[in-house]
């Protein structure tokens, strides 16, 4: 109830970002070094490769109260482990299908491709995701509790 009373603009979503060590994590670091502002709603979890993400990790994040989740891997064709980012993309698609099936908006989950040199792009992605999730409102998974 408390969540529902908060207007969408005031709502501060919790967004879990699964970031690849070789690109998105370095890009987030670079964004910091460049003193770029991006929303504080992002909780970064470093992965050795975006290909290590599993549908279960994504679902657990939502189950434990995340309002949004994104997986960020290397640009296509540049994965340190050849095709980890492509595998991650497929798993994100699978997780999106599950979210839709259980009645949670699939837009709460996204896959992004960011290179290590793209600090501004990471900040952009973080802003874009935060705006979208703020628009969607609090996750119904925690709202009903």
């Amino acid at each position, binding site marked *: 109830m408390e969540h529902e009373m908060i207007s969408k603009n005031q709502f501060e979503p919790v967004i879990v970002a699964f970031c690849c060590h070789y690109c998105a994590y370095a890009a987030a670091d670079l964004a910091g070094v460049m003193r770029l502002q991006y929303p504080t709603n992002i909780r970064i979890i470093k992965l050795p490769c975006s290909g290590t993400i599993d549908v279960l990790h994504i679902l657990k994040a939502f189950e434990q109260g995340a309002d949004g989740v994104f997986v960020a891997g290397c640009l296509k064709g540049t994965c340190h482990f050849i095709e980890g980012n492509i595998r991650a993309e497929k798993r994100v698609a699978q997780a999106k299908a599950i979210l839709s099936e259980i009645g949670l908006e699939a837009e709460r989950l996204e896959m992004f491709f960011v290179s290590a040199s793209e600090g501004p792009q990471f900040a952009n992605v973080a802003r874009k995701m935060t705006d979208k999730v703020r628009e969607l409102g609090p996750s119904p998974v925690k709202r*009903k509790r």
Partner: protein
Amino acid sequence: MIVAKQKPLEEITKMLEGYQRVLILGCGTCVAVCFAGGEREVGILASSLRMADKISGKNRLFREHTVERQCEWEFLDDLNEQVKEVNAILSLGCGVGVQAVAERFPDIPVLPGLNTLFMGMPVQEGVFAERCVGCGDCMLDRTGGICPIARCPKGLVNGPCGGYRDGKCEVDPTRDCTWIQIYERLKKVGRLDILYTPQPLKDYSKMGHPRSIIL
């Protein structure tokens, strides 16, 4: 290995109606390999059901457990205590697993979470293909190690039929004709002579159900 596929979530949800405490039971053998009923799939299904419940305002308990093999009672002994705390078991084992669990725990409903499909193998990443129908009368010695009963849609023992075109099957033109594969294989191993002897009609009485063996 036995290949299976998870039932749609909608069907599982309907099956679980009326049960407040459910044990989702995985099997760590065949169905774990084909990503249908292993520990990971149990986790994904339990997580999905819990979230769906929270969204729809229900509050059921979903416990998770995975045994090495559901089709052997010895492996089910671990469940004795857990079963007392639930009022249904959703088995993510193959049809054999579901029945083994149901026989071992006769006082509790055991529901199938998977559709069991066939005996087969992974032929490439994420692709599983049927290889055996368990006919009880193996003829692979005469077909170059390629089973026409399981792999030819017509199950011909003296093939190919007249319908194949350019080495492809007439039933499914995207597949290679099994009997052409058998011919090529026998040619490669120097045993084309086998094909000069017509195969007798297959004795399908050996496939009668239910079958059992006593060692």
